[in-house]
């Protein structure tokens, strides 16, 4: 039928006697999938072995996004390191759209120059090319930055590879049990310890500028909320009320903190002016209200409440008022994070004894389950909204995993030790 229609179109156009380009062929079907790309290992000039495999970092980044399908190293037909060495015909035969080549050169001890070029294989031309100076500690970050540049150039959407993830790990057991708050690169590498405690650490939350992290600690035997500067490590206690002090969430303007307090006897959502620590109670309900998450415009928050009999998500204006229920599918919908464009809500969706990451599209009202774990939790959007990081159960131990927002591509971030909980993706610009 499609072919018939197509033939009809071309015959009609042919008979109408268009002198120029008389034939028109309609293309209605395509393939939705990852774009094939070849990332050639960067050349190395310097003493000893190359300090870092930048091509592998870039390849892993682009692959994890679900938008690109890097050619395996064994299929690389050549290893050019500058434009003059590129024979596009070779790459066309491999059906890759784009080619990335580069060179790392040692300029002095521990100092490097990183150059890379991105080519359009079919048009046989360079798309972008840059050179960066980098210290040995910066090489991974430079690789992520190159991933961002490639991603943005080819998808039209800002990359979020050069960002960070905060998370909590538990190691040891019994008296030796240690809780650690860490910050790692978006691929899970380069973890840095922010805080270590033998009492539980929970609920890390990035400030909008990425400079501070709020968290809950039991180091004084009761839940307290601290704000900590990531770079300097300095911190201050902002909430130590009787009962629950939990689930801090920064407002987009960075001036307020939404949190859960039970100082009035029941867990309710409050908003604190960070500078003055003035509190304003947002919810008044005998049920448990917790896990507030700000909308990107700061005008409303989404929180979890069991006021309807089971934990479900509700939306409330940031000045208060009557909450509106958002989720109706399933017996458990909790732990909301709102996408950077405000159009979607990621959440933990419980159904038939398994807890998975789902996305509720606010415009259509459609809920889509993205993961297939048994105990997936703590979804957090990447700052470009294209991916969600979450914790998943891997044999009685939590690990971090990332899923593309369309659910097509899912990957565990493999390197963390211990039981990993509550990953939170940083904003841009850290």
């Amino acid at each position, binding site marked *: 039928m499609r072919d018939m229609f197509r*033939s009809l179109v071309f015959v009609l156009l042919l008979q109408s006697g268009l002198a*120029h380009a008389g*034939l028109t*062929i*309609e*293309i209605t079907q395509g*393939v*939705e999938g990852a774009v094939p790309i070849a990332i050639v290992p960067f050349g190395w000039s310097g003493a000893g072995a190359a300090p870092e495999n930048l091509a592998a970092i870039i390849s892993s980044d682009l692959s994890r996004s679900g938008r690109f399908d890097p050619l395996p190293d064994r299929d690389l037909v050549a290893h050019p390191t500058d434009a003059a060495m590129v024979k596009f015909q070779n790459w066309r035969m491999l059906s890759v759209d784009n080619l990335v080549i580069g060179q790392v050169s040692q300029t002095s001890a521990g100092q490097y120059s990183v150059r890379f070029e991105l080519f359009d294989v079919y*048009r046989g031309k360079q798309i972008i090319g840059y050179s960066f100076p980098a210290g040995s500690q910066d090489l991974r970050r430079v690789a992520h930055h190159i991933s961002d540049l490639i991603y943005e150039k080819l998808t039209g959407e800002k990359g979020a590879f050069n960002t960070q993830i905060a998370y909590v790990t538990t190691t040891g057991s019994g008296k030796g049990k240690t809780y650690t708050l860490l910050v790692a690169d978006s691929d899970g590498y380069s973890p840095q310890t922010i805080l270590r405690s033998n009492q539980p650490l929970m609920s890390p939350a990035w400030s909008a500028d990425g400079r501070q992290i709020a968290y809950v600690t039991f180091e004084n035997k009761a839940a307290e909320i601290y704000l900590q500067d990531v770079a300097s490590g300095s911190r201050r206690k902002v909430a130590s009320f009787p009962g629950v002090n939990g689930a801090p969430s920064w407002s987009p303007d960075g001036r307020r903190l939404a949190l859960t307090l039970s100082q009035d006897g029941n867990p309710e959502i409050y908003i604190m002016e960070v500078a003055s620590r003035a509190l304003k109670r947002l919810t008044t309900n005998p049920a448990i209200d917790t896990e507030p998450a700000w909308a990107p415009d700061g005008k409303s928050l989404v929180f979890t409440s069991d006021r309807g009999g089971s934990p479900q998500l509700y939306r409330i204006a940031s000045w208060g008022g009557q909450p509106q229920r958002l989720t109706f599918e399933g017996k458990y919908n909790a732990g909301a994070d709102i996408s950077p464009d405000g159009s979607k809500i990621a959440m933990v969706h419980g159904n038939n004894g398994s807890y998975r990451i789902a996305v509720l599209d606010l415009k259509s009202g459609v809920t889509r389950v993205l993961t297939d774990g048994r105990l997936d939790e703590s979804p957090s959007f990447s700052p470009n909204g294209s991916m969600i990081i979450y914790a998943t159960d891997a044999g009685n131990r939590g690990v971090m995993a990332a899923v593309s927002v369309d659910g097509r591509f899912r990957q565990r971030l493999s390197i963390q030790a211990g039981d990993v909980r509550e990953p939170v993706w940083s904003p841009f610009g850290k």
Partner: protein
Amino acid sequence: MWQVIRENPRAVLYALLMHIVLLVLLVFSLDWTPKISRPAGQKVPIEATLVDQRQLDAIAERKLAEERKAEEAKRQQALEEQRKVEAKRKAEAEAKQKAEAEAKRKAEQAAKQKAEAKRKAEAAAKQKAEAEAKRKAELAAKQKAEAEAEAKRKAEQAAKQKAEAEAKRKAEAEAAARARAEAEMRAQLEAEQGRLEEQRVQSVLGEYVGYIADKVERNWLRPPGSAAGLKCTVNVKLIPGGDVVSARVVQGSGDPLFDDSAEKAVLRAAPLPVPDDPSIAKHFRDFNFVFKPL
């Protein structure tokens, strides 16, 4: 009636006078009839004179007889008068009747005479007209016959000329028609050959359009999350082997990623399958793709 009155005014006058007299007489005679009337209910005092009954009877009898006689005479006289009047009236009526009859007869006679005269005049006129018509008809018939004879003569002459001309024309037309028919047949033959060729070209074209579209579709990586309803036109130039010389968006969708994916689909699909036959392959030298996801 009115006619009679007008013709005999005197008789009428007499009759009228007689009627008036009779009416007067009648009225007065009524008055003559003795009438004893007495106001009802009024007791008139009686003046009585005693007389001898017999004497009285005789006198009364005489008197009565005399009165009867006088009355009889009077009655006879009236009757006589009446008879006279009646006779006169009758005479007058008869006279009137007679006069009326006479007048009627005379009128009828006059009418009859007039009608007769008219009939005669008409008959004469008719006769005359008929004679004239006949004369004219005869004349016309004669003229017509002459004219017909002339016309026939002329027609025969014209027919003869026409027949000659027609024969000549026909001969010429036949020659021309033969020539035309031959030309048409040749043209038809050529057209038929052309049509068959066109059909063959269309059929092969259709086949290769299918191959090309399939290959391009297999190579079109649609950018995820593109808006619905995007459409762009890509102009393609090929060299004879099907290799793409250029693939260029000539009408964009507004979404640069979508447009780029369309161009790239064509580039990725190269070389495109094209037929060897140069007369068909020429259609694939320079053509358009319309990328329009369903």
